[in-house]
């Protein structure tokens, strides 16, 4: 169906799964609009690990390791998400390593947050 849109990326409806825990992945995602929930599934239960908003990215582990997706991410309300292809991102970083600064900065922030959660 035709949808005129002035948002980039793919529109996910409320509750729609963007990435599924345990599946292979080779993309990074950047939220263009809306909110997504990061969920850890174990033994039939679900724990919400984080809520991410516009400009946040997820799925970054797939850039650095060939493991399966560690969490499920789904839209909370309507969310528009842009896929960043691993191969083209690496090609760009090859020419401009500073593109990786923000990714590293964000990942470092997430590690710090995790440390803090573990400490309390």
């Amino acid at each position, binding site marked *: 169906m035709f949808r005129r*849109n002035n948002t980039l990326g793919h529109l996910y409806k409320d509750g729609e799964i963007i990435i599924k825990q345990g599946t292979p992945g080779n993309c990074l995602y950047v939220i263009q609009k809306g909110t997504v929930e990061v969920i850890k599934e174990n033994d039939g239960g679900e724990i919400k690990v984080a809520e991410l908003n516009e400009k946040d990215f997820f799925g970054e582990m797939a850039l650095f390791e060939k493991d399966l997706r560690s969490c499920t991410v789904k839209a909370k309300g309507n969310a528009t998400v842009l896929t*960043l292809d691993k191969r083209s991102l690496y090609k760009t970083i090859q020419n401009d390593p500073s593109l990786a600064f923000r990714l590293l900065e964000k990942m470092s922030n997430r590690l710090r947050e995790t440390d803090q959660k573990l400490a309390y």
Partner: protein
Amino acid sequence: MGDNTFAKLVNASTRNLEITDGSNIAVIGGGPAGSFFSYFAIDFARIIDLNINIDIIEPKYFDKAGPTGCNHCGGIISETLVQNLSAEGIVLPSRVIRRGIESYTIHLETGSAVIETPLNEQRIASVFRGLGPKGEENSNFESFDGYLLSLCKEKGINLINARVKELERHEDGIVVKCTGVPDKKYDLVVGSVGLNPGALSLFKNINPSYIIPKTTKTHICEFYMADTDIDKYFGNSMHVFLLNLPNIKFGALIPKSNYVTMVLLGDQIDSKVVDSFLGSKEVKGCFPKNVELKTLMHCHCFPAINIEGAKSAYDDRIILIGDSATSKLYKNGIGAAYITSKAAARTAIFQGISKNDFQNHYQKICKKLETDNNIGKFIFGVTSFIQKSELLKKGLHATILDEQNKINDKRRLSSILWDTFTGSAPYSSILQRGLDPRVGASFIWNTIKQTFT
């Protein structure tokens, strides 16, 4: 040569010109190149704990509709640039994107074909560089250039609405003289003035070895239409034309909110060439029937585009970026501005601001773009050759249609055309993929089949 002169020369070549705490940088021109430079320079400085001041000096008001805020551009943000900006944390808001593009429709005399974007996403943005043509004053949209400037302002960068009238070199900096603003000395002056001859001559005056880029004329025109008509006739598809018309290498119709932007690229495009394009049945067929296209024309211009980069676009304390230095041939000028601006910011903050620093770290990036443009000239030579042959165009059309039934990885020719027309990939990558024997074999096979139909 006297000892004194020799000592001065040695001193000049070895002195340590660099950005330090409290340094002042003037960025002349607040288009994408100027904004990208400022945005990244202040970020890089923060990473290494430097406090710097950046003034962007721009006489235009991008929040105004009509020529006052217009930057004469087709207004396409390529797939690659959209991805890179997203990775940088620059997400284009809805109020800037006039339409998300999810496919392109190629029109040949032999037929049309739609090529969908990979991953079924809207990955290309159509924007207006200013607020849009006259009459857009009350629109809820924002200009692309204005949005980038607002990001700079959020980072503490000053915007000075003034016109620079003179640059004056001093031993310890460059004085920028503007109309209505006190003179100010800067450690570094960045030229992002596009191809404006008056502004480029300011830089030529203090850097005589600078040779301005070679240009050719192009044509941009805005057709006003009801948004529902644009939905019906154009959808979210960029329409590109490979027609056998003199002087035209490539024509495109880009749907926006309630305008369709026409871009014609080629050699010395003039009114006669434009008329021949508008008169073709393929172009007319994109619009509602029986509409006289000239009645929809809201504004038009013949801006210059860069077809060969500048020489010596840097000196001690001076660097030119974006179109003032080099660009990508025919396509993705904003993407090229992002590349040169960021390279200049990296060099200035991490390496230094002497001529040698720019030569060693910035020039190679411009050179790479220029080399790629030479490959681009060859690619456009090939497309021009195909444009002139009805049989080859039939073969091309059949190959594209054939590929649309295949999975993404197998749509080889379509992906080559996608990148050629959207400017999403370097020309070197397009050529490399074009040399894949499977591409040639499929194209030749489909062309042979056409001879028997």
